[in-house]
């Protein structure tokens, strides 16, 4: 119970810090819009035939290009939240010299990850829903209410993402100068999950990698529910894969994080950066 209160306090602290930088907060919506969504929609409009995305329809089963991309943006907001909002704060704590003092409190180090997760997922949920609204209002995306049935898939993928965030946090603590690492891995993870294009266009080897990522399945089920796209696998299989990935990644990530933290304490390099 005390750990949960600590996690909540850490989350509130993160949210208060974020609230101090309102411009940075608007980036949750503005950045994906200008960096990925609008360039993608404009590229897609280059392929339109009589205002219809006939090519996209033949690959995915939907001609709703905006819907396809904005549902992808919802998933991407959680991926970037896991990498930048959960794992990267350790780098910021290192830089500001507060990592060691935080870890000297009776709170367990893994609780810090949990606290960052709560704050990050709250921000990602708000940002993702705002993006979906922008897609619907400004770009004519049409989501079917049945997509809510895919919510458990999203929840399972978020559990997996916490495990992955533990892994990335361990890497951040080890690498120290982790900006490039987090930037590249978050980008590869999100595009590998199919946020920008249908997985079907990937070469076979990369398709195998994509099928090892939990967000691939959650996104696939969300798109199938919201837009009527053809799922990659039967939905039951996708749920089983999601449950298996969550069952593996969370304990494995936690184990790696604890090992890394112990190693850094032994070496006395925890606060170095």
């Amino acid at each position, binding site marked *: 119970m005390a750990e949960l209160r600590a996690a909540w306090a850490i989350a509130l602290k993160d949210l208060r810090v974020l609230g101090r930088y309102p*411009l*940075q907060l608007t*980036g949750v919506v*503005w*950045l994906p819009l*200008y*960096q990925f969504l*609008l*360039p*993608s929609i*404009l*590229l*897609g*409009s*280059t*392929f*339109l*035939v009589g205002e219809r*995305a*006939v*090519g*996209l*329809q*033949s*690959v*995915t089963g939907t001609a709703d*290009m905006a819907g396809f991309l904005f549902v992808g943006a919802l998933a991407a907001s959680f991926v970037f939240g896991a990498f930048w909002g959960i794992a990267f704060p350790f780098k910021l704590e290192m830089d500001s010299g507060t990592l060691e003092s935080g870890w000297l409190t009776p709170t367990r180090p893994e609780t810090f990850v949990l606290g960052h997760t709560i704050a990050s997922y709250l921000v990602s949920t708000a940002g993702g829903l705002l993006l979906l609204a922008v897609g619907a209002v400004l770009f004519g995306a049409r989501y079917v209410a049945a997509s809510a049935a895919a919510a458990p898939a999203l929840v399972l993928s978020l559990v997996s993402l916490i495990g992955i965030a533990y892994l990335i946090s361990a890497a951040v603590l080890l690498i120290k*100068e982790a*900006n*490039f690492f987090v930037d*590249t891995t978050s*980008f*590869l993870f999100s*595009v590998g999950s199919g946020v*920008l*294009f*249908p997985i*079907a*266009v*990937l070469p076979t080897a990369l398709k195998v990698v994509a099928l090892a990522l939990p967000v691939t399945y959650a996104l696939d089920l969300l798109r199938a529910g919201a837009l009527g796209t053809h799922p990659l696998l039967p939905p039951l299989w996708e749920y089983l894969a999601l449950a298996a990935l969550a069952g593996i990644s969370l304990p494995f990530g936690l184990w790696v994080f604890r090992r890394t933290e112990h190693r850094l304490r032994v070496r006395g390099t925890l606060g170095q950066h």
Partner: protein
Amino acid sequence: MNDLRAFLAASWKEWRVLRRYPTLLIGMLFWPLLLPAVYVLQAQGFAGGDPRAMGAFAARTGTTQVAGFLYVGWSMYMWLSIVLWGLGTSLRTEQVRGSLEALFLTPASRLVILFGPVAAHIAVALWMFLVVGLALVFGFRLSLTPLSAVRALAVILLAVPALYGLGALFASAVLRFREANSLVQLVRGVFTLLCGMTFPIVVLPEWARTVAMTLPPTYIIADIRAVLLAGVRMTELVSDFMIVGGSGIVLCVLAVVAFRYVEGYARRGGMLAQY
């Protein structure tokens, strides 16, 4: 002569700083290759193997070389990022490091402080263009002749004053407002959405096309695509070069004027060392 030596020293200093961060050069290998590749895959998804969709793309862009079209556009995005994050934040970086006052106390011309880092950042940009060129030739089998490569290089060099004038102007704005991140995102966002980096500007609404035609990167992207993908000769692009060259002169003069204003503002307010 002394100013020239100071200019060379400033360039050399910047290059030495850049070399200290190998992840930057690795990034210049990774991002120019991967970022456009993602959009090539996306284009495949949008085309879906449907000849009608590919026909629509060819009609709107004037080429069937999807990879070439996208790689050129994204290399402009990368170049703009190098300019804004490099030259554009150089004065602010000196301010944060606490070395801006020391620079202003040297007898070197203010132009050295403003444009000194340019040469080092041009070297990084040329490395990025080389990576993109090799990716197109060996990864996507784009048939680039030596002549078209030389023409593309000429377009890039002609664009240098415009791009770096913009960067220097931006550097003064960053120094004045003491905020780099949001300004980079804002300016880069505007250019990304208007200059046709992933799309031909014909798909933009008319008002946006009009704005796009006032921005030098629109011409630079179109001209590099023209010489590389359509085999257009340099003489056919003279009017574009005049616009880009003229913009370069105007932007460089504006940058110097803005820099003088910001310097006066900062010295009067004692803000040179504040951040």
